[in-house]
């Protein structure tokens, strides 16, 4: 189920509405091993796609391929028909280890500013943008703080804010809430859902938490280990036809949710070595 971007939110509407990314029988070798094998799927602007699968089956490499940090060894990754040949500023990654992806020597505002500086936004305009981005993630009151004064959840919000500053057409999230406690995780899930709806970006969200995948996604891609150990290929794509906006209590009690959950669980379990 696609969402149309809400206009006038500072999102680059042209980039967000037209994005179409396609994985076409992509293969990737790392360390001499074929980590990803014949993976095909597609992703469009406004979609929220969750990827689940056992650890070590190449989910993170998948993200890096999409970001242009890796190049595929076979097959092609096409963006609007053209192959991705490197990183581009409108693709943002939210890393799981947020502490390592932020600058400890800059304040909260300074960290967000980095993305704007990189894009060449003049100093006068930066302050306003930083403020509105921080408000969007709920860090407005903490603009002058340093990383060591922030909790884990706040640091992850900061990373999200910096990624939003890139005005991403494609937002890649690598198990972003894996290192956070359950309550923070729930709060951030809803926030990310709302932000995604607002900006209309395409979101690829990696998680090992099946509940989270179904709760957040329009579609769930279940990767499973391939015929060779450590290799992944697509097992199934599950469309998630739950109504939006999602609610932590109501959605998770929806019979459709439970059905999807069972189906996904059995899928993963059956494929477990």
């Amino acid at each position: 189920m696609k969402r149309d971007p809400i206009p006038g939110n500072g999102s680059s509407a042209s980039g967000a509405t037209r994005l179409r990314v396609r994985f076409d029988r992509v293969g990737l070798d790392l360390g001499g091993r074929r980590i990803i094998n014949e993976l095909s799927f597609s992703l469009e602007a406004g979609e929220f796609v969750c990827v689940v699968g056992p650890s070590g089956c190449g989910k993170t490499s998948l993200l890096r391929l999409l970001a242009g940090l890796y190049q595929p060894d076979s097959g092609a990754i096409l963006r609007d028909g053209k192959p991705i040949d490197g990183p581009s500023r409108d693709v943002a990654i939210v890393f799981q280890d947020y502490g390592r992806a932020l600058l400890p020597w800059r304040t909260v505002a300074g960290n967000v500013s980095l993305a704007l500086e990189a894009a060449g936004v003049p100093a006068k305009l930066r302050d306003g943008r930083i403020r509105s981005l921080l408000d969007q993630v709920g860090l407005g009151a903490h603009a002058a703080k340093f990383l060591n004064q922030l909790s884990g959840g706040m640091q992850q919000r900061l990373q999200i804010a910096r990624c939003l500053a890139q005005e991403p057409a494609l937002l890649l999230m690598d198990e972003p809430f894996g290192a956070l406690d359950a309550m923070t995780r729930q709060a951030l899930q809803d926030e990310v859902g709302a932000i995604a709806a607002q900006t209309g970006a395409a979101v690829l969200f990696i998680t090992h938490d099946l509940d989270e995948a179904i709760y957040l996604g329009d579609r769930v891609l279940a990767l499973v280990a391939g015929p060779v150990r450590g290799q992944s290929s697509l097992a199934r794509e599950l469309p998630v036809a739950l109504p939006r906006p999602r609610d932590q209590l109501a959605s998770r009690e929806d019979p459709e949710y439970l059905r999807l959950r069972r189906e996904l669980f059995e899928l993963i379990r059956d494929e477990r070595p």
Partner: protein
Amino acid sequence: MVGWNVGGAFVTLAVVLAWSAVARLRLVSPVFLPSPEATGQALWAGLNQGDLASLTVGTVERMVVGWLLASIAGVVLGGLLGVSPALRTYLQPTLEFMRPLPASAIMPVGIALFGLTPIMVTAVVAFGAIWPVMLSSAHGFSAVEPRLTEVARILRLSRLAFLVKIGLPSALPDVLAGVRLSLTIALILAVVGEMLASQQGLGMAILLAARSFHAADLFAGIVMLSVVGFVGNALLQACERRALAWQATT
């Protein structure tokens, strides 16, 4: 906390008193162990009437000039090394080989090249002091968090922007540690240089004091040298704390 500091001060006082007793009882010959009182007097006289102050300034000047040259060159060279794995492969082994070389061993070469002149001392100080800065800067720049390098690629930061916004702040703890070590080496080399080249400074002064059996003056000079070392280090540490305030864990 305060209690322990006071207690510690008492212990220091006790040590000084013991020293005084040993000197008074002539357990060690006063030729080479003056009493603390005599040392204090020599310090006072030297600073007020004598030229202890100007001698100290001389040593400090030589130390600081050489150290500044070394630090700037060291950071730049270390930075170049740190960001270029190719350069590192070619240069690192040679540099690692030179690391355990005593800086003072360069002194004879310096004397051969420049004679027993002030230039020689500054050159040797600079050459000796460059190694800690360069090596630790290279390490700092090469050890930038890989996650941040990926972020920089995604944001498509230019080489220069990466160095200034991410590389340098990330390397700063290592750079500052190297700079501090450099100062210690600069002091040592300045003193040895003075001893060899008969330059006006504390090194020369304590050598002369020893040769003329003026133990109190000798000890006064040693105290001044310790003060120079201590103050220099304390100043740098203060700068380091301010520059690295973001590191403090709450």
